[in-house]
């Protein structure tokens, strides 16, 4: 036990004493925060219509009723033009000086009212609308026009309504539920990947790196038990990977509102108080899942690292492991309900399902605990294998 602590304290001294290593670990977090925070507003300003913009809308033969409702809706006057001005208006839309051109047939109101789909032998009256999809203001004006025209069309032959004056259009899902759903589908994969990538660089350095540089051999001729070395390495890597993963996760969570655009619908979602969504049992089980799956990941990566002769080789060897982690993570996004208990015994998959279950607040504690215990079992097996590997001269000293 004392030896395990000695090994751990050396690993921590190695990590925290090396500014370069700390930087390399928190760099992804800083980058994620910076990129998301920059990308979000940039994307919104690129694709969102300008709030102060007064749309310039041209119309040929516009019926008064439609002209008025457009003017009401977007606070602008529709400019009536003749057919001779069509080309000029199109030119202006093309060069982004105008936003919309609507061409109505003459006597549109009457024609539309008289039109009966069952008796008519000619096609319905047609409105032509020109707009520019690369200009957000024009795109927005087009959308408004479509909406108003749709509403106008249904008002002409109103047989029934759906959800008139019903709050939220009848969607009974609470903001919390909606939030929980999004989180449940995305977060397990993200957490798994954060933990994995946090662990990856550290384990390669701590195991393959030491092996390659011959410093592991120095430990191997000391009376230190191989088991103590394996446990010390796994535990210290787990603590450090947890910190690294936590920093990256924090950066992502903090920058998500920026990415989604604060103030909008998504921004409101993130304002939903998370503490109200999950209770203390949820948190405790989640912590248990994260810690146990972390030990499993560390054990897996440590074994790959110990097998590899060079850090470069270990990087390549770890790629298939990364794919496994991704596949397990993605399985959480397509989960349909909760699988049978036996699936919770599968490494990684069981943990993803557990986390998904906890996040969506639909889980059986028994299944989650089974997943955690199996994680610990697999991690223990991993530790045993690593001990054997430290004992094997083929693995440690073959060139």
């Amino acid at each position, binding site marked *: 036990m004392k030896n395990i602590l*000695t090994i751990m304290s050396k690993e921590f001294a*190695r990590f925290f*004493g090396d500014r370069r290593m700390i930087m390399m670990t928190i760099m992804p977090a800083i980058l994620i925060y910076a990129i998301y925070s920059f990308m979000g507003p940039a994307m919104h300003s690129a694709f969102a219509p300008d709030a102060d913009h007064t749309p310039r809308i041209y119309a040929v033969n516009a019926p008064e009723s439609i002209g008025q409702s457009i003017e009401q809706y977007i606070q602008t006057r529709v400019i009536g033009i003749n057919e001779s001005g069509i080309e000029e208006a199109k030119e202006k839309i093309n060069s982004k000086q105008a936003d919309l051109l609507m061409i109505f047939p003459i006597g549109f109101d009457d024609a539309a009212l008289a039109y009966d789909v069952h008796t008519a032998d000619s096609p319905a009256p047609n409105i032509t609308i020109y707009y520019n999809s690369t200009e957000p203001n024009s795109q927005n004006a087009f959308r408004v026009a479509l909406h108003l025209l749709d509403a106008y069309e249904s008002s002409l032959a109103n047989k029934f309504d759906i959800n008139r004056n019903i709050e939220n259009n009848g969607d009974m899902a609470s903001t919390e539920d909606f939030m929980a759903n999004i989180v449940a589908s995305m977060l397990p994969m993200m957490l798994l990947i954060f933990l994995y990538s946090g662990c990856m660089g550290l384990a390669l350095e701590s195991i393959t790196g030491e092996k390659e540089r011959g410093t592991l*051999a*120095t430990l191997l*001729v000391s009376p230190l038990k191989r088991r103590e070395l394996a446990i010390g390495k796994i535990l210290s890597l787990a603590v450090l990977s947890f910190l690294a993963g936590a920093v990256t996760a924090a950066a992502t969570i903090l920058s998500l509102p920026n990415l989604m655009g604060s103030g909008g619908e998504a921004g409101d979602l993130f304002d939903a108080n998370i503490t109200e969504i999950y209770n203390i049992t949820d948190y405790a089980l989640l912590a248990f899942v994260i810690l146990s799956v972390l030990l499993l990941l560390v054990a897996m990566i440590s074994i790959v690292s110990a097998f590899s002769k060079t850090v470069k080789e270990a990087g390549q060897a770890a790629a298939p492991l990364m794919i496994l982690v991704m596949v397990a993570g993605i399985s959480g996004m397509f989960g349909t309900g909760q699988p049978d208990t036996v699936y919770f015994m599968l490494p990684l998959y069981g943990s993803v399902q557990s986390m998904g279950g906890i996040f969506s607040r639909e889980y059986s504690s028994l299944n989650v605990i089974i997943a955690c215990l199996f994680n610990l079992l697999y991690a223990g097996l991993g530790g045993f294998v690593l001990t054997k590997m430290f004992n094997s001269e083929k693995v440690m000293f073959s060139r």
Partner: protein
Amino acid sequence: MQKRMKVILKAEGLCKTFKLSQKQQKLQNTKQKTITAVDNLSFEAYESEIYGLLGPNGAGKTTALRMLATLIKPDKGDAFIDGLSIKTEPEKVRAKIGFLTSELKLEDFFTPNYLYDFFAKIHHIDQNIAEARKRELFSKFGIDEFAEVKVANLSTGMKQKTSLVISIVHDPNIIIFDEPTNGLDVLTARVVTDFLTELKAQGKTIIVSTHIFSLVEKLCDRAGIIIDGKMIVCDTIENLTADKPLEDIFFDIYAKTAEEKEGGLR
């Protein structure tokens, strides 16, 4: 007189073969799938003597010492260090010996001071005793001048001195040094050889491997000459050098072995 001395290290028929890769087979123009590095090696070392393993490069000296230090396991045979088998009780053996070889490196990131403390803890040395020993050894080898410099920034000699001190952090009774003066300048080499003599005076047993004849003549009480993994001669330096200098003896033996090998091939 030697009969009365206590045998502290006993190697019995140590054998070690390594697999040859196909590339290596081609390179050496052979169809053999394995190469015998150490072939039925037996010898004894007595308490408080310096025993030299002498041989050309590739003779199997380092492999033999690595087996004694429990870093690798023999295919056949066994060795007993202070009565402990290297095969069945490697952990206990490791606590008894100090092993120095170029293959064992110190982490570049840490300072000699940190590494000394770390290995003292791994060996469960009482902190006060470890501190006192550190002061003594660091001042003897001049390590106190660079005790807080990272290993990465040390010269070869400084690194070797640090490695040496750390290999005996637990004050072992049996010390196995593989080519301890390799790559050192004459001054540093002298510090090391003087220290070996000093350790012997303290009653410690030292096994050194080397290909430097003068070192063996000057330092060792007894020596064994290894060629192609086999122990060819093993005797006291006095007996070995009764007629000729050790270097001449070695060449005679080497020529004879080569002849026998050729004869065998024919």
